[in-house]
């Protein structure tokens, strides 16, 4: 048999969808089969990822004192307590607003950035390095940095605006929800941009040159070309970007925790931050919030995939 099989069977099965019965793939390794190869990874995930999820669900149906003593079953009490919490509705609303605003802004700006970075221009390398910068610094560090820039007494922003005469006296940007939310959204978009832009950039680079040639010969304008060719062909990368951002932004914790701790009260908390706050008073209620949060992420992603026709694209 030659070194190179003319048709490689494994490459015929495309992506995650093609697993079932990929014909040419060999049976499991002899002897113990695949077990020694996957068992360590699977065991670890069961112990450290799956087990906590199960524990979480169990905890949410228990009565637990602050000291951690289990005082019997609580049924759905913790869930009703959570839903009746005076902060809950606001937290939920803001979580949705937060996710929608941050994900949409991230996708739009990333589209523009990817388009720009896909062109050749002097200084492109520097610009690409700058694109990566927020990614290389940790999210937490970025958030802390912004917090100090927004600091009421020593922050750069206040100093600058005072000097320019834009404001009369220093503002406590993170002290009131009205200004804290927009600033935290800015930070969230800022840290989401690098990965998203690179995903879209990778997508742009897979569009073959001759498609653009053809469009140009047909006399398509640049906007026509963009909406008619670039956007549709960018769809897979765009969907990946949206899904990953939906999960990350919805579950985002360090930004808000570092900048406002969800305060004052729970006025600047999303569900994950609220869950963390609840941990201080009622572990079971906090677990209930986690379960609700996880359910919401799954529903959100599934709904998006359904609406966007993800599977259709994968099978095509």
């Amino acid at each position: 048999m030659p070194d190179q099989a003319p048709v490689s069977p494994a490459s015929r099965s495309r992506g995650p969808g093609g697993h079932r019965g990929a014909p040419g793939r060999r049976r499991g390794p002899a002897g113990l089969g695949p077990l020694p190869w996957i068992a360590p990874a699977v065991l670890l995930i069961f112990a450290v990822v799956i087990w906590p999820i199960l524990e979480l669900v169990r905890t949410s149906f228990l009565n637990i004192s602050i000291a951690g003593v289990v005082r019997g079953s609580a049924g759905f009490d913790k869930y009703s307590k959570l839903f009746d919490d005076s902060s809950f509705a606001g937290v939920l609303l803001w979580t949705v607003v937060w996710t929608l605003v941050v994900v949409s802004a991230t996708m739009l700006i990333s589209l523009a950035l990817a388009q720009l970075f896909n062109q050749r221009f002097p200084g492109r390398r520097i610009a690409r390095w700058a694109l990566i910068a927020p990614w290389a610094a940790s999210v937490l560090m970025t958030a802390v940095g912004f917090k100090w820039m927004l600091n009421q007494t020593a922050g750069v922003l206040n100093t600058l605006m005072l000097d320019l005469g834009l404001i009369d006296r220093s503002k406590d940007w993170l002290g009131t929800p009205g200004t804290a939310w927009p600033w935290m959204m800015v930070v969230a978009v800022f840290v989401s941009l690098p990965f998203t832009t690179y995903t879209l950039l990778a997508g742009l680079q897979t569009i073959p040159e001759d498609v653009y040639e053809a469009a140009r010969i047909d006399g398509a304008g640049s906007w026509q070309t963009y909406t008619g060719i670039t956007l549709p062909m960018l769809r897979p990368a765009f969907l990946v970007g949206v899904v990953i951002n939906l999960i990350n932004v919805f579950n985002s914790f360090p930004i808000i925790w570092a900048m406002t701790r969800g305060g004052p009260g729970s006025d600047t908390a999303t569900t994950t931050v609220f869950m963390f706050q609840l941990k201080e008073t009622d572990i079971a209620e906090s677990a209930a919030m986690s379960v609700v949060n996880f359910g919401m992420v799954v529903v959100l992603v599934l709904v998006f995939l359904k609406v966007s026709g993800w599977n259709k694209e994968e099978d095509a």
Partner: protein
Amino acid sequence: MSAQVQVAPDGADSPRGAGSSGVEGERPAHGRVLNVFSHAFLVVWVVMAAGPLLWVVITAFRSSGEILGDPMGFPTSLQWENFTNAWLDANIGKYALNSLIILAGSLTGTMLLGAMAAYVIARFTFPGNRAVFLLFAGGMMFPIILALVPLFTIMDNLSLLDTRPGLIVAYIAYSLPFTTFFLTSFFQTLPSGVQEAAQIDGASHVRTFFQVMLPMAKPGLVSIGIFNFLGQWNQYLLPLLLNNENESSYVLPQGLATLAISQGYGGDWGALFAGLTIAMVPVLVVYIVFQRQVQAGLTAGALK
């Protein structure tokens, strides 16, 4: 990279050549002339993205008094003692060492276990193949933050709380889903002929894996390795939860967070910024060394 004829080769040496607008794109219909507007957009982005980091580095060289007086200024004299203070007094050196030790274990473990699992999932059919794959894919959607309380209890029960092995195990477990998912699609793209040839030649599975498949998968391994390095180096939640007992075993992000809070009382702002700067160095080094692989790897990972 070098296809451009007329203009400076990729602008490596011409930082932000702002004015020159008449650049011919390589893609006529779409890589069009960069107009003033889009150029301004890029400049704004560069300033916004790199500005804060530069500000942190510059501020790290100023005294606390200067910083309080005028946050925006440049250092009048280089305050190297900020770095000494951060490294010694604020224990940043110790925390950095802790981080390195943890990462040595967790990164190795993540890559080895992830590559092994991905190899088998991608290359062999066996009962439960699909279920195992879905386990990894589903694990990506579950964030650490939700499982904090039960994870704490479980690690406590396993006597792994506040130990290095415990933290390493947790890092590995939470990195594995994405790593395996990514590497599975990567292994699927590799030609199967070489693997078959190796086995026909009588190489064992272990040998085929380590001497044939791993070297072939190197680009994918490097990019997911860097991705994991960034994630684990900056990991804050897991150590906060599982490694919070002894201040002497803190990892770098914990140390920085502590420093950020304590400087509010201590007033040593210079040390805080020096600490932040120190934490950035390894990341920047890794990034600069492997930049090309990060880019190439993302292409493979995101779209395959």
